[in-house]
């Protein structure tokens, strides 16, 4: 009897376990299916947009009227951005799509620029025409390749979730024929974008080259010298404990990485110094614990930041932005040459409002352009430049400044800061041609929506 009861209980338990397992399995399945569907959608949308892109590029080449052509180019721009967004939704770690993505970006900025220009200047210049031809040819190849991959994927009923899982586990299937083809298509796009020589990455090759120029010819220093330089720069005495090692190959410049324990202020500094010349490019101080009372104002902090730079840098600088975040003041300085503000070569300093010490220092842009020379004589007067602005802008402040234009070239401009209604704007007018280079709406403080009241 007891035996039978036990069997009964066990059977019921077993049945429950079975149902539970089944349900978990179902849930997993449906989750994976959802994931798969969103990958499928992204992939097929992506191929579709590449297809359209190619067609629209062809149309742009055939069009003669400036307006209809700029319409086509605007369409190209929209499609390339859409395809770019769809690449971001695919498991890119598993799919070789980096070069394709880069191609889409380049095509995007190219088509945007020339859409605007072709409205203004009528027929295209031959150079531009050539670039467009190249993009068209490349888009054609990409379209072909992607079409094949799409067909292959559909025939083999490829599951992107499986592809993703294989990539994560690094199994041998990672080298399936489909992946090999993917590699090939992606690689073909690469050949093209390299021809174009476009920069990418956070440090455009411009900065890297400029820094290399500055460092060129400077003597290489030893670890001990670097250590001494760092301590001098931070004004810390020699008793501090320092560890130092070289930066890896991936760094933008040959350099040392230092960790400095300052017993006096009981804080830790992390610092990067170049090997050549021992220039301190960056440092940060790990906040000493407990110090969270503000003892100085943002204004005092900005004076401390300026004094810190003055002692270490010979150039004239101007404070262009200051912001208080909790217990830290963040300051942006730019070099001033002959009264001209050099915005792209900025220097960032953070000061703790608790103890007034410098918490952070970022000077790569600044040092990379240390000996940059630039035309600082405007060709048109401030009044002439101001005429080109929207008539409702009420100018409150003006300067002469160098900024980067859309092609990342440096241009000399008049900077006007003004208001229109309740909004404030920063406007840069070209000091040679009078063209409106940039109009930025200046952000106001953001209300606390409740996410993170502090």
């Amino acid at each position, binding site marked *: 009897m007891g035996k039978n009861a036990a069997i009964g209980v066990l059977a019921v338990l077993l049945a429950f376990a079975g149902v539970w397992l089944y349900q978990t399995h179902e849930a997993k399945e449906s989750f994976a299916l959802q994931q798969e569907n969103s*990958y499928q959608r992204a992939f097929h949308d992506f191929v579709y947009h590449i297809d359209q892109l190619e067609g629209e590029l062809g149309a742009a080449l055939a069009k003669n009227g400036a307006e209809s052509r700029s319409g086509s180019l605007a369409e190209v721009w929209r499609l390339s951005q859409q395809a*770019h*967004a769809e690449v*971001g*939704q*695919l*498991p*890119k*770690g598993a799919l070789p799509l*980096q070069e394709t*993505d*880069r191609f889409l*970006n380049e095509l995007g900025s190219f088509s945007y620029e020339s859409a605007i220009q072709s409205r203004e200047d009528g027929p295209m210049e031959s150079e531009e025409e050539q670039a467009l031809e190249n993009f068209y040819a490349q888009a054609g190849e990409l379209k072909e390749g992607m079409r094949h991959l799409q067909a292959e994927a559909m025939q083999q009923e490829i599951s992107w979730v499986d592809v*993703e899982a294989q*990539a*994560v586990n690094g199994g041998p299937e990672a080298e399936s024929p489909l992946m090999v083809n993917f590699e090939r298509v992606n690689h073909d796009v690469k050949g093209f974008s390299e021809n174009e020589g476009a920069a*990418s*990455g*956070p440090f455009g090759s411009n900065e890297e080259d400029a820094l290399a120029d500055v460092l060129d010819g400077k003597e290489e220093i030893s670890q001990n010298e670097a250590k001494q330089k760092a301590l001098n720069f931070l004004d810390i005495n020699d008793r501090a404990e320092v560890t130092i090692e070289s*930066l*890896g*190959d*991936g760094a933008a410049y040959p350099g040392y990485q230092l960790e400095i324990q300052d017993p006096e202020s009981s804080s830790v500094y*992390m610092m990067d110094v170049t090997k050549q010349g021992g220039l301190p*490019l*960056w440092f*940060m101080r*790990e906040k000493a614990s407990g110090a969270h009372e503000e003892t100085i*104002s*943002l*204004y*005092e902090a*900005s004076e401390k930041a300026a004094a810190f730079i003055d002692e270490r840098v010979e150039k004239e600088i101007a404070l262009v932005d*200051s*912001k*208080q*975040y*909790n217990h*830290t*003041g*963040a300051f942006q300085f730019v070099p001033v040459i002959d009264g001209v503000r050099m915005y792209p070569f900025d220097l960032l300093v*953070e000061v703790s409002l608790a103890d007034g010490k410098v918490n952070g220092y*970022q000077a*790569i842009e600044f040092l990379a352009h240390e000996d940059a020379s630039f035309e600082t004589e405007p060709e048109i007067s401030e009044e002439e430049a101001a005429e080109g602005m929207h008539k409702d802008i009420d100018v409150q402040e003006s300067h002469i400044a160098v900024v980067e234009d859309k092609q990342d070239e440096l241009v000399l401009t008049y900077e006007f800061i003004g*208001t229109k209604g*309740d909004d*404030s704007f920063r406007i840069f007018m070209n000091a040679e041609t009078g063209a409106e280079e940039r109009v930025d709406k*200046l*952000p*106001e*403080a*953001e*209300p*606390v*929506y*409740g*996410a*993170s*009241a*502090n």
Partner: protein
Amino acid sequence: MQQMLQTTVRLIIICSGVICLSFPAATVDAFSEQTIQRGATGDDVVELQARLQYNGYYEGTIDGVYGWGTYWAVRNFQEAFGLEVDGLVGNEMKDRLVEATSYDEAFVQRMLQEGRSFTHYGGTPLENQKGPAPDTGSGGTGESAPPAEGDQSPPEGEGDEGEPPDTGGNEAADEEVTEEDGEADIHQAMNVPDGFSDNDIQMLANAVHGEARGEPYTGQVAVAAVIINRMNSDEFPDTVNGVVFEPLAFEAVMDGQIWLEPNEESRQAVLDAINGQDPTGGALYFFNPETAESDWIWSRPQIKQIGKHIFAE
């Protein structure tokens, strides 16, 4: 409009004596010693904005953040009162402000605590300048303005123009609600770096916390910097969310740790990174050498190691 404003200002100057009497709660001199500069936040800025609004120089929201709107108000005040026009609020300007205006600190602070939209113009009873309390759910008026929108037009003349649309009848009820609630949203604002919303910062803080909690502070800034470097790179999506939620990009997204509540440290790390701190020197990838499974990641040119993570180009 401009003329109206001038009339108001004149009106204020003429009867400032009388008005001062009608603000028994006004504190005499609450400014601290600091020189107030653009970008500053805190009670001194609240007082500055309230006082500038009192005599019509500042029409924006009193939120305690010295932004551009406040900056122009300060400069216009400096110009009108013959001070050096530099946007810095030093002792001389503070003295002038205190002479020319009145400040009801108790009222303003209470409004901020209760999360109401409000104004602080002189010449109109403050009770009429009080906005509705934020909708806490049980109020049910459905009309109360969200705390974000504090922009009310300045009072024009002596009427009750400063009065928001739905005060009056349900005012008492509103107050009850906030008292019960005790934790009302504070009608406050904060500085955010250009181009990022507070919600972006929050999302970044989540990612940093999920990926790098327990790492040294610099390591957390470094992870945030990698995300920002990706946004600026051609090979990655261009938005915070695009980068963070890119499939296979971050372990914390794959295993759900991104939804852990971030702490203040990760938020601070994100702000540092957005403000330009990049401990990685331009890295686009990072990995933990002890757990990294893919060969590919080891093939990236490495830049440096911070804490447990290796950062690579």
